[in-house]
């Protein structure tokens, strides 16, 4: 069953805290992450299914999967001196691949890919101790053509149904965004107004409208990673978002959000 749903930023500056960053802003995002951690402790999930967009780390141009599931016993990743290793909830991961394929999603699965920082930056701050087993779910966000927002939403809806039929208590977490433009002239000028309008929509429970945005719009708004959120929205339906924080830094719209779910 799906017991919780969250979305959050993963900018590495939150972890590495270089001197380019506004200390107070970063600490406010850390405080929002700490709230997520407390919620996870209260929700007691058997697994965290985490939807993140690979930053051309696990998958290079040798093969570019639109949607993938990590199905192994554990996963690990490194960024500079930061090193992470998490257990994978293998039975659940395998069930998601099998049920997803059965429903017509041509999923890639991997037992070998390294874990991207989009996964472990939020988990650094939110993972309860001992570690809750993870099911990493990849959505291609950086290598066009990416899956359409509509397809992401449909995959999320299927994920919600599959998880709903399982006995495990599962938290869904989307990692990504909000507006940022790494490697471009726009890096220091994200589209914060776009983010704020979007958060208003999500707070009003109008998330299904996001299934209709275009790839072009996401690219223009610096929100290609929003595909991970849109996937999650397919699973949470019309639940209203509780925005823990929205902290626009000089390069990034940092949001942390929960969709409180009615658990039956």
């Amino acid at each position, binding site marked *: 069953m799906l017991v919780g749903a969250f979305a959050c930023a993963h900018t590495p500056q939150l972890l590495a805290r*270089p001197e380019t960053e506004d200390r107070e802003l970063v600490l406010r995002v850390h405080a929002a992450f700490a709230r997520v951690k407390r919620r996870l402790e209260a929700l007691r999930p058997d697994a965290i299914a985490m939807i993140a967009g690979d930053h*051309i780390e696990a998958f290079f141009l040798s093969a570019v999967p639109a949607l993938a599931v990590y199905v192994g016993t554990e996963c690990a990743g490194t960024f500079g001196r930061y090193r992470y290793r998490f257990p994978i909830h293998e039975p659940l991961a395998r069930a998601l691949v099998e049920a997803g394929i059965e429903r017509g999603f041509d999923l890639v699965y991997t037992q070998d890919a390294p874990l991207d920082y989009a996964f472990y930056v939020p988990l650094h701050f939110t993972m309860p101790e001992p570690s809750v087993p993870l099911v990493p779910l990849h959505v291609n966000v950086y290598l066009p053509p990416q899956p359409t927002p509509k397809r992401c939403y449909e995959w999320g809806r299927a994920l919600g149904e599959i998880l709903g039929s399982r006995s495990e208590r599962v938290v869904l977490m989307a990692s990504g965004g909000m507006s940022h433009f790494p490697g471009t002239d726009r890096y220091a000028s994200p589209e914060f107004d776009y983010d704020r309008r979007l958060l208003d929509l999500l707070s009003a429970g109008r998330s299904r409208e996001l299934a209709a945005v275009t790839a072009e719009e996401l690219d223009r708004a610096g929100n290609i990673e929003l595909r991970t959120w849109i996937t999650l929205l397919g699973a949470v339906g019309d639940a209203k978002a509780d925005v823990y924080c929205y902290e626009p830094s000089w390069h990034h719209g940092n949001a942390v959000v929960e969709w409180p779910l009615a658990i039956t």
Partner: protein
Amino acid sequence: MVHYRFPPASAYRLNRCLFALKSDDAFRSRFRADARAAMREMELDDADAAALLRGERDALVARGAHPYLVFMADLRLRMEREAVTFEYF
């Protein structure tokens, strides 16, 4: 797409080199020791090699490099070359 475009096959070797600079510690060390030899290893042509040596982002992107790979390859090199202060607070 305005910001992130389809990576053209003509830029495959360039993107492979940037990917290695980003994610392969051993390659990054070889590049720092002898950039030209490392770029020969990646079979870069002269124009790609020149743009990469000069660190010209716009030229690299114009040649088909993925902007995120250019950004992160540069960051990872700077993280090792300079004493970037991490965990500043």
